[in-house]
């Protein structure tokens, strides 16, 4: 497993290099001048010239990119064009919020998804199955921003059970958990639906397998047939979907963080793109990419636990 981690680590370095080049060049080509965004519509030509010079935007592309990579290799990810704050500092403040949101949503997605998938597979073709699959389809189809706004209106404005937004309280306090509930449901619903569908079809497949029939014939208790023999074997494709969904969740944080006024990396990324704040965009994209690679590495490690036949050594 150590070899796997080392291999992935080396791959990650090249991956990040490639991503940084792609992001840097696409931001460079994209219309919209960072100096105009700093100076605002009122800035005169001389104001803009001074700002461009100050930000090093007058240098050729290769010089700018080379400088970026050189500094990044030394752990300096640059400074925001807008706020002049260090990129790493800006991300460190926001990352815990995004992580909290992503993990809470993943918990919502996994718990709801697996339970729904399981029920629906065990009660195949019953009204329970039909209604679960219908809800799953609805869950995939509902856009984040709409669900978020709806939940706010019902639970925060009308019933006043939960706060409208923010994520400033520690997650282990009652207030902190209350703040997490609506955003986690908003973000987790889509993934829950996907996991439910995958869990259902995978369970249905395994449930018909010979070894399950043999177990039943041997008189193993139904509870054990499901928990020990079926569920574990049905989990491999589900885990894959969970891993891939994590990336999907990170993308979804952009909208969810905006709707619920959460100060996270997703919002930082989208705001920075709008303001052409290149160093900030670079920093947040690289973080998300790293996270995606790490999560998929974890998924690969979890495989070996679920199915001992899988080995990376």
């Amino acid at each position, binding site marked *: *497993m150590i070899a796997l981690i080392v291999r992935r680590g080396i791959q990650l370095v090249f991956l990040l290099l490639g991503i940084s080049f792609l992001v840097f060049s696409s931001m460079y080509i*994209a*219309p*919209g*001048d960072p100096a*105009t*965004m*700093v*100076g*605002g*519509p*009122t*800035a005169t*030509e*001389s*104001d803009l010239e*001074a*700002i461009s*010079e*100050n930000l090093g935007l007058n240098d050729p592309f290769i010089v700018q990119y080379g400088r970026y990579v050189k500094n990044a290799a030394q752990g300096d990810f640059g400074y925001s064009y*807008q*706020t*002049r*704050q260090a990129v790493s500092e*800006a991300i*460190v*403040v*926001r*990352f*815990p*919020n995004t*992580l*909290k949101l992503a*993990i809470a949503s993943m918990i919502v997605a996994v718990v709801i998804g697996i339970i729904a998938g399981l029920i629906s597979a065990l009660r195949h073709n019953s009204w329970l199955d039909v209604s679960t699959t219908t809800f799953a389809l609805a869950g995939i189809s509902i856009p984040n921003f709409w669900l978020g*706004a709806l939940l706010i209106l019902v639970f*925060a*404005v009308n019933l006043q059970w939960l*706060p*409208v*937004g*923010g994520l*400033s309280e*520690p*997650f282990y306090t009652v207030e902190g958990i209350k703040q997490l509930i609506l955003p986690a449901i908003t973000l987790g619903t889509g993934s829950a639906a996907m996991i439910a569908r995958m869990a259902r079809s995978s369970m249905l497949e395994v449930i018909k397998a010979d070894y399950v029939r043999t177990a039943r014939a041997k008189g193993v208790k139904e509870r054990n047939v499901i928990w020990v023999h079926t569920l574990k074997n049905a989990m491999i494709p589900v885990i894959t979907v969970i891993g891939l969904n994590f990336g999907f969740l990170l993308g979804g944080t952009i909208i969810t963080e*905006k*709707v*619920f*006024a959460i*100060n996270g990396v997703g*919002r*930082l990324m989208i*705001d920075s793109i*709008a*303001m*052409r704040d290149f160093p900030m965009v670079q920093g947040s994209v690289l973080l998300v990419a790293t996270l995606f690679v790490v999560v998929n590495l*974890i998924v690969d*490690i979890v495989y*070996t*636990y679920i199915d*001992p036949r899988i080995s990376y050594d």
Partner: protein
Amino acid sequence: MKKNVWLTLLLLVLLFLTACSSGESASAPPKENSKEDTKEPEKAESTSNETFTYASTSDVVGMSPILTNDSVSANITEHVFEKLFERNDDTKEIEPRLAESFENTDENTWVIKLKEGIKFHDGTPFNAEAVKYTFDKLRDPATAAPRASLLEPVDTITVIDENTVEIKTKYPYGAFLAALSHSNAAIVSPTADKELDLMSNPVGTGPFKFVSWTPGDRVELEANEEYWDGAPALKKVILKVVPEISTAISMLQTGEVQFIDNLPTEQIERLEAMDNINIEKKEGTPVYYLTFNHSKEMNQDPEFREAVAAAIDRDAFVSKLNGLGVRSDSVIGPEVFGYDASADNAGTPYDLEAAKALVQKNGYADKPIKLLTANRANFVLMAEIVQAQLTEAGFKVDIESMEWATFLDTARAGDYDITFLSWSNVTGDGSELLYPNFHSDNIGSSNRGQYNNPEFDELVVQSRTTIDQEERKVILNQANQMMIKDNAAVVMYHGIVTAAMDKAYSGLILAPNGKWSLKDVTGE
């Protein structure tokens, strides 16, 4: 193998816990960015009437008046810092703030007496040195200040004595006091600026002192109990970033925040139905207009511009704004210095038949018009309505909509036929509207319509270089009337500035330029 997996999982959980707990401490800014380390940590959302939370749809860029140029940052800097002069919203005259008085010893010399005994929040005395330091820093090219151009006409700044400063301009500068009343000309503490970064540690003389900034989340201010003009009633003010306006309105409804501004047209009905808030509206300085790309041959034809102007029913558009627009043909709006009521109806009136006749006579129907618009709420609405109206008159119009940064660049490059622009006009001075937006000096930067009329340029220069304010008014009106007659731009409407505040509070001062002051706000 299993052991390894459990170990990995354990490590991950630990990592998560550390990340989350470090997040909590990180949500207070790093020590050097804050003065909070000397204070007891406080609960952010106190229910006390002395804590007042404002929901802002974006974060401050920073809090140095010298280095920022956006309205959200100005909302904070206007409470922490003060300017030498300020426009009186009622009389429209510019009055001393930190200044005591001023006199012109000649056309190019401004001798400004300062108020005595005022101190910055860090204890540094406010004096002529501080004024010189601030203005020198603002106009130093090395600073790369976004609004260095405010002091472009300044030649020298001299400290006469502790409380007197003399500023010499290169040429007579009529809008000088207006420039000094701009948010970006606020006076900073020289000591603080040398020791700290004012972007994250603002130190001024204003009614509120800076406490902390969590970028992307909130800015906290506290009352300056030693404020020279009387301590404010609110003890703590929080700017909370809530990017989604509908979320901010929900927060206002549930009492999580007490104040929002810039109410969007489409949310007015919802806000009016809420019984726990008061809506403040005031005729404002912002102007929204259609401009031609004057560098294009088609747009240089006066009959083409006349046909476009005649085809646009501005009254019909303003009626769609839920009461948030004022109709006038004048480019210099009713709340801006230099306005004259005679300009209200000076433009080409709406006359569909006349427009159709011109289109037919000159064959404009064959030339497709590219209507560029930024994809911001009212701009898209304007574009759609104007497209329909122009089409009715026989023009062929294609809308090209783009996000703000791309729009600014495309408009500056002149890659369009007609577009919509706006100007909020912080100083409320007509010269500060006509010069950046329509003077040929600024083609390639802020004159996005590339309007080039030497006669008009001359009048604008006169309005800037005349010291006598009455005379300036006359000149500004002439320039205004000239460009209206020329159909250089078609004014769609003048903005109404808005804010909504919890009913438990009163005393908000909302200025025509959209800025507001919480200094006199009190809770029940």
